[in-house]
């Protein structure tokens, strides 16, 4: 017999949520510390390096910031894009696939852009990526609207399809395959010509890439879009109750198609900016933003300002873990992934605990 059951807390207090989050992070760091201690690494030293993302005592500290931003920009844009579709209760878990198709199409332009002006190339790359990702998104939305297919499955499958497409491109040595380096016998992805590599504003030795500015402007646009525009209003109504939306005379199908196009196109944009900043493409170019973005969106409760903050924090966690891991021969990047996983898991549990409580059945009756 089930003695205990879950009850949603009547009130959700920000203070309690923050305390639970802090507790969750501390517990996960403690678990990580035990593992580090077993490997004979001083956990305090390690965490010190992690949270300063390798800035302290580093002559090339600006490189750390640049590296951090390269992780941050795609994560931020993808999380915003996913929030958009989640707000409509459209479970787009195809961020990875939408990102990859965008990256492939942007690279098509990039590899063939020798001699073109940099500005034009990058714009073309962005357009190609947004269109290709957007079309994938709208196709899945159309299947949902027309035949009521399950969007979770469809978007999930697109991840694998696109992953294998890019692996095929990366493994197939053939005369037509301009993705690969011509001077190598083994199949290796080539580097973009200078014309396709993202430029930025030089601030001393540090370069602030245009993509960073674009992502921040995009955050503001999405915030205004969701909060103040008619289309944003339609998204909230459809997400809240599609029966009500229909009753109010909204074209629910049209809204779903439009929103999925915007959402996927934004992920495509993130992909174009990423490959352009990296100057190359690979099958790990997504850095799992399609998955991490889901976590960011939900941890933020789909609120745009919260998405921004969460994306910053998760980027610091990711980059800091990597940066710290490189300093110790005993551990590698996998430990960084492990620690990240533990922290995210704890935060999700903390979030759950902040919203629900476990009560005994007898108490429930009196509650």
């Amino acid at each position, binding site marked *: 017999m089930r003695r205990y059951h879950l009850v949603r807390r009547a009130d959700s207090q920000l203070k309690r949520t923050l305390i639970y989050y802090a507790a969750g992070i501390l517990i996960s760091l403690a678990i990580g510390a035990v593992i580090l201690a077993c490997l004979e690494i001083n956990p305090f030293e390690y965490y010190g390096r992690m949270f300063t993302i390798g800035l302290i005592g580093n002559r090339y500290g600006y490189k750390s910031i640049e590296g951090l931003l390269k992780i941050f920009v795609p994560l931020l844009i993808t999380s915003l894009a996913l929030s958009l579709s989640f707000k409509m209760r459209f479970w787009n878990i195809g961020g990875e696939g939408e990102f990859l198709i965008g990256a492939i199409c942007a690279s098509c332009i990039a590899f063939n852009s020798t001699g073109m002006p940099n500005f034009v190339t990058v714009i073309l790359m962005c357009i190609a990526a947004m269109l290709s990702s957007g079309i994938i998104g709208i196709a899945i939305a159309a299947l949902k609207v027309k035949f009521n297919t399950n969007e979770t499955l469809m978007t999930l499958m697109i991840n694998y399809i696109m992953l294998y497409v890019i692996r095929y491109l990366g493994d197939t040595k053939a005369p037509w395959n301009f993705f690969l380096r011509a001077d190598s016998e083994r199949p290796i992805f080539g580097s973009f010509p200078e014309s396709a590599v993202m430029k930025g504003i030089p601030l001393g030795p540090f370069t602030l890439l245009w993509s960073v500015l674009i992502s921040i402007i995009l955050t503001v646009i999405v915030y205004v879009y969701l909060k103040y525009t008619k289309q944003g*209003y339609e998204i909230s*109504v459809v997400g809240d109750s599609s029966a009500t939306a229909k009753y109010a005379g909204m074209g629910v199908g049209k809204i779903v198609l439009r929103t999925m196009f915007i959402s996927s196109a934004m992920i495509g944009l993130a992909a174009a900016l990423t490959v352009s900043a990296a100057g190359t493409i690979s099958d790990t170019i997504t850095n799992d933003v399609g998955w991490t973005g889901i976590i960011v969106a939900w941890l933020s409760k789909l609120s745009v300002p919260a998405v921004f903050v969460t994306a910053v924090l998760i980027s610091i966690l990711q980059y800091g873990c990597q940066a710290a891991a490189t300093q110790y021969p005993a551990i590698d990047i996998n430990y960084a992934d492990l620690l990240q996983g533990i922290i995210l898991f704890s935060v999700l549990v903390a979030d759950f605990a902040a919203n629900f409580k476990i009560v005994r059945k007898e108490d429930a009756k009196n509650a």
Partner: protein
Amino acid sequence: MEYAIELKGITKSFGPVAANKNINLALAKGEILALLGENGSGKTTLMNMLSGIYMPDSGSIFIDGKKVQINSPEDSGKLGIGMVHQHFKLVERFTALENIRIGMRGEGRFVHGADVRKKIEDTAAKFGFDIDLDKTVANMAVSEKQTLEILKVLCYGAKIIILDEPTAVLTVQEIDRLFAVLRKMKEDGHSIIIITHKLNEVMAISDRVAVLRHGEYIDTVVTKETNEKKLTELMVGRKIELNIERPLMEKTHPLLEIRDLTIKNDEGAIAVDHINFYIRGGELLGVAGIAGSGQKELCEAIAGLRPIEEGQMIHEGESIVGMSPKKILDHGISMSFIPEDRLGMGLAPSLSITDNMILKNYNESKGIFVDRKLAREEARKIIDKLEIVTPSTETPVRRLSGGNVQKVLLGREIKSGPNVLITAYPVRGLDINSSYTIYDILNDQKKKGVGILFVGEDLDVMLSLCDKIMVICHGKLQGVVNSDHTTKEELGLMMTGTLNIVNKEGKTDGIAKDSAFTGEEGSLS
């Protein structure tokens, strides 16, 4: 008398709503007890406490004279109680046999054991079930699924069977077959509770009838010593002298005319069957009928949310058949439907009052932005005018109490100045005071010359409030009567299909003499 079940002082509340108040009910061994009550009178809640889905806040349950505590459906099963829910609980992908098998305890590890099949077949034969055990549930008709549900609880050894509105989904012939099975079960010593609000069925099958009203236990009567009239009185309640105002207005031309309208429900069965009626300006037309007689489908069709099969809908001489909901709205027809969960259609529960105010006209402001300033003003106006209790205009509608939710909805509907107002169950679940506010709102609209279609539940209210009442039963028109020249008894008989006065001499058949239809079918002015 020996009782299979005795309920004493059962109370159950959901938040501030008391679904059951101090209920006492007894089911004798080997009898069929009908549980009668209007929608929302707490029948299903009460039965869910017997089947372990809910637990009572207070009161005690006795099974075979012993006090028991039912904490889960499993407990309930062990006590020999089996419930056949209104919405079937079957695994669509499984066969009949597998569906029965998964809930069986102590029959070995294998699903398709020969002894299991034999046991099920024996039970089926004993009660005269006709069922193909290897058929997948997804391929079954509704009546087959129900047969399977009943067989399932019998195979689990239930001695007390509860059926929640089993006849709602069945045809007349299927109902006869079901009743034959129920009688066999009774002969075999089973005790049965059947929930229904169809009086003719109550008279046909039950030994005794227990009546609930607004969550309270009213009485238990012996079926043989009562009749449909008396039961209607018990169910609807006769006390509470309602003094609802009914301003008499100069009636204008027919605003909305419905001819030969046929509509199907979600399952593809005929929900509304060749109905004729019309509404004049300054007239309040009530629609009375047992729940599920086609009211929802009718409202949805007029609002353009549901395609029609046949017939015509004319608004001020212009056909609205096939128009989009938006266009019908622009024509001046406004529909508000309060579903059972109160929030499902018409409101976006997580959005604020402000945002809900502009649900239907957010698109009218210029530019790409939503005009929230205007919306906030309108929200404030309606909050003041209808005395809506809320912390602010930005409070999500979900947080408001039922009465206030309904005021928000009606407030928005009348704000756009419609000339036909369709409103279904606007006082559903409201206390007397809130209900009166809603009646006043409707009367104000009537005084403005709006034609109102009022789909209601409470006959007393309808008799006082409506000018005319149209009665439907199983989607068929039973007649349109003038509130001053009818009685609750007559309405009750019409609602249950016992009386049909369409085309009777001197009675209206739902076609206006000064109709905007000028000639035969299709040729409109």
